[in-house]
């Protein structure tokens, strides 16, 4: 797998972090929406966009992978998708 930071590395150095999905607003969603986000999986058969971690360098990035052929189509830094700051409300107050 090609890590956007470290180049091509052995697959055993990587950890899959699951599909890229948007987190609901934790303060304003109900329990059901939260359980959906935490537990339910698309488990897509085909091309998926996933979080991957290059463990030795603790670098998280995004990969597009085919879950049938296991072909890695492309990898890129998360900043290509998340290019704006996301502010979550401060729950400590």
């Amino acid at each position, binding site marked *: 797998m090609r890590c956007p930071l470290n180049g091509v590395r052995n697959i*055993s150095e990587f*950890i*899959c972090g*699951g599909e890229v999905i948007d987190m609901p607003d934790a303060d304003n969603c109900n*329990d*059901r929406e939260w*359980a*959906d986000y935490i*537990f*339910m*999986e*698309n*488990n897509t*058969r085909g091309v*998926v966009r*996933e979080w991957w971690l290059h463990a030795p360098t603790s670098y998280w990035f995004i990969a597009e992978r085919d*879950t*049938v*052929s*296991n072909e890695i189509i492309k990898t890129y830094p998360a900043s290509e998708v998340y290019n704006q700051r996301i502010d979550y409300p401060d729950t400590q107050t």
Partner: protein
Amino acid sequence: MPWNLLKYGFNRSYPADRHFPLSCALKSSYDIVIIGGGGHGLAAAYYLAKDWGISNIAVLEKSYLAGGNTARNTTIIRSNYLTQEGIRFYDESLQLFRDLSNELDYNVMYTERGHLTLAHTDAAMRTARWRAEVNMHLGVDSEVVYPEDIAKLCPQLNLGVDVRYPILGALYHPPGAIARHDGVAWGYAKGAAEYGVEIHTQTEVTGLKIENNRVTGVHTTRGDIQCGKVLQAVSGMSSEVARMAGFKLPIKTIPLQACVTESVKPFLDPIIVSGSLHVYVSQSSRGELVMGASADPYALYSTRSTLEFKEELMMHLLELFPFVGKLRVLRQWAGMADMTPDFSPVMGLTPVENYYIDAGWGTWGFKATPVCGKRMAETLATGKIPSIIQSFDLERFYRFEQVGERGAASVGN
């Protein structure tokens, strides 16, 4: 003996009957359609016909009978789980397995071998003690044993301390058993067919007919059929079939690899499992060592095998049994496992009316075949969920009441 065999081979009228009739034409309507002709689907069909007198059933299988995960597991049967719900459930299965050959009049080659879960760390010993206490409390034969006992139970095991992970003790479960996976599926198929259940192989479900949130029919590659109720029993493809019904499951499809060696004379009686070393091994009645390890590290809809898996498995196996180093691997395969976040299955009602689910069987499906079939049959026939499977429903994830079996359901944690 050879002459008798030859005579039998040339005889045109074989004394043996077909186990189940050849596929016939699909009818236009059934009371119950079961999607998936593996052990679970066939067991459900059998108990629906036998216990509840419902035989207008079609079992639809997209490939050949019991060719999915029923054919790809390592056939271990045990009930030494961690939670009360899990232990009660799997113990009922074990009781059903004990009498299954008689019940079906079909030899499923059930043999009790004893089951040793090795512990190599203090943490693993603690889990073993925890499991032993909960098991004994619920009447399941299970105890913690130490190296001197293990030496008597399995003298072949390398109990030396000059290895990377010396054995500190084990959880011993005498009723641990293995059975012939094909035998179980074929036995249930034969039993169900005798009651008039139709088994249709090479019949893939391509869609569901849902009206007012109630399932009324299924579309298949051999035409459309009407039905009263549907049971989905398609581990490995659960998410894809549930997508047709319009709901999501807490399941990731992850390959689980296994392999067997060539046959050797019987030398290994108990089933040996090591959670920390990611190994489980037993010797089949054919003399092959049947081995498996932990599930793959990421989701994949594929049954490919990898070299990394075997390198890791053999590395640990050689520590336990150094003398098997010259054995060759005969076959390798993988199954697509439905992994759930709490390592427990998903059984019961779904958001769609008259549509029932039997999924999430990760690495613990084969041993549950009889009990799941029996209890899902009860669910479909009565419309009520039996208490023994109540806590395994899909809604548990929305109630935040998971049934955590991670410490007992698989290896590699």
